[in-house]
């Protein structure tokens, strides 16, 4: 097998970096949003629900454009971030991570929310009567029980982030080595005569990564589920 061209390696590594960053950084917010939607009753709950799910329904190009308006260097948030922290998002890999995180967020929240709704609040009440404060109830009862949901959501979000195209290309364009991820690289390669082979290689690699993620999530969630609901006691 011949060595991969450097532009393909760049795209693959960048995709992994962008997706991992997006998934890991959005996880705490995802758990919080899922918990709020599943358990709390507050004014604006429906609005939060709508906002979380909006990227799932909007055309990705619209999401990307909105990101550009808000987080571009002259946008209200982007300008602030650049002036205060020197953090530039537009046309940078950080912006690609933000776009991937936003696009994957609904999937992350949905999976976690479903698993929180499956936790019997009566168990949490029982923990409270045994002396656990709200934070401890969450850490010792709720969190271990929703771990399969969190894992499933994380892997789903990672896979979504790996495949994100529309919002990414609109917000951060398609700059090799900076914002060119696997999907945008495939798109670019298909525009160039004679590079269909390279495009096919990337296609195969993205299939392999997606399959690996799916198998991993299956294996992990099966192990966790066996530990929680199974007949064997944890060691």
């Amino acid at each position, binding site marked *: 097998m011949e060595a991969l061209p450097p532009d393909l390696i760049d795209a693959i590594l960048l995709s992994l970096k962008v997706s991992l960053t997006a998934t890991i950084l959005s996880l705490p917010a995802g758990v919080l949003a899922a918990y709020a939607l599943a358990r709390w009753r507050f004014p604006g709950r429906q609005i939060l629900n709508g906002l979380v799910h909006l990227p799932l329904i909007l055309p990705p190009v619209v999401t990307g454009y909105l990101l550009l308006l808000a987080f571009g260097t002259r946008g209200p948030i982007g300008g602030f971030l650049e002036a205060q922290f020197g953090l530039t998002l537009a046309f940078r890999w950080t912006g690609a991570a933000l776009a991937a995180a936003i696009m994957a967020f609904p999937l992350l929240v949905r999976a976690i929310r479903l698993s929180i709704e499956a936790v*019997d609040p*009566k*168990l949490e*009440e*029982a*923990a*409270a*009567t*045994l*002396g*656990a*404060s709200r934070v*401890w*109830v969450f850490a*010792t*009862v709720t969190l*271990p*029980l929703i771990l399969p949901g969190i894992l499933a959501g994380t892997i789903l979000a990672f896979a979504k982030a790996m495949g994100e195209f529309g919002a990414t290309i609109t917000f951060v364009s398609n700059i090799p080595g900076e914002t060119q991820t696997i999907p945008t690289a495939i798109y670019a390669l298909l525009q160039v005569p004679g590079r269909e082979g390279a495009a096919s290689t990337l296609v195969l690699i993205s299939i392999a990564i997606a399959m690996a993620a799916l198998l991993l999530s299956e294996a992990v969630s099966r192990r966790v589920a066996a*530990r*929680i*609901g*199974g*007949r*064997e*006691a*944890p060691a």
Partner: protein
Amino acid sequence: MSLDLAITHRFPGFSLEAAFTAPNGVTALFGRSGSGKTTIANAIAGLLRPDAGRIAVEDTVLLDTAAGQHIAPHRRRIGYVFQEARLFPHLSVRRNLLYGRWFSGGGGSAGTRDDLARITDLLGLNALLDRAPGALSGGERQRVALGRALLARPRMLVMDEPLAALDEERKAEILPYLERLRDEAAVPILFVSHNLAEVARLATTLVVLDAGRVTTAGPLIDILADPDAVPALGIRDAGSVLTGRVITHHADGLSEIEVAAGRLLLPHVAAVPGAHLRIRIAAQDVILAREEPTALSALNILPARVTSVRPGNGPGVMVRLDAAGDSLLARITKRSAERLALAPGVSCYAIAKAVSVAPMDIGQS
């Protein structure tokens, strides 16, 4: 140690307005489903915030709406045993047992190990410690839940229908543990139940709740022997409780028990000679005779004196008897009472078939 409670709470279509005091020992909160028992239990544990009222365990005020005081559930130290055990499915039995221990500030100390050993002995949990809750039977689960509540060092134990989800066999398996707990653990217990047989076995004090109001409260033995309390308890379940002592076990499977008025023969009782028992005899199982019967299949005949005859709504009357200081209730027809000319002061004999007393009706005291 005692519980003082006076609360009012309104749900759509239901209002609770209850007040009672539960002294040391086991207090049964008895009532039909929907009478507000669980609401009271939840209010004590802090899982429900009543509209108004005050709840105190000895000197600790848990709730006082007038003073704006409401202690959070996790600071109340009320051991709550729920109808469904509510064990944590991701933790082993041992970790379930020790869950509350950690918060009551006794993590891995030697005292904790001693207490764990004591509680597992008391509840027969030694063989279960490394199992997962999913692998336990209903009765085992309930025993673990009980141990878990006790190990959290509660000021008070609240048990909400802990036996209701169990079949008769499992109930019979767990009741002796509850009796031991009552006698050995120095924790006051509020036992919520709609089953008079359970209540009669365990409780010292009885609080009867009906449609959100306390209708009767006082010592269990007195209330069970009070014909006026019968309508609140349910006429079919009415029956008085006698206390006795095991004399011997006979080869034919009967146990001989001494009560104040004489001796009873009952189906084998699992208790050593000398053990003290409480025996509930259902009012509808008691037959009355003016003269001592002979050539009768029933084995138990106690001399007694009528203290009151209370007519019911139907064809029956409730006769209260004094048998050498113990109270007995007999439910017979008005016609029989008239034929025998039963009236306060009349001497008679109370007759009970040995087999009419079920194992469930006999407990250690």
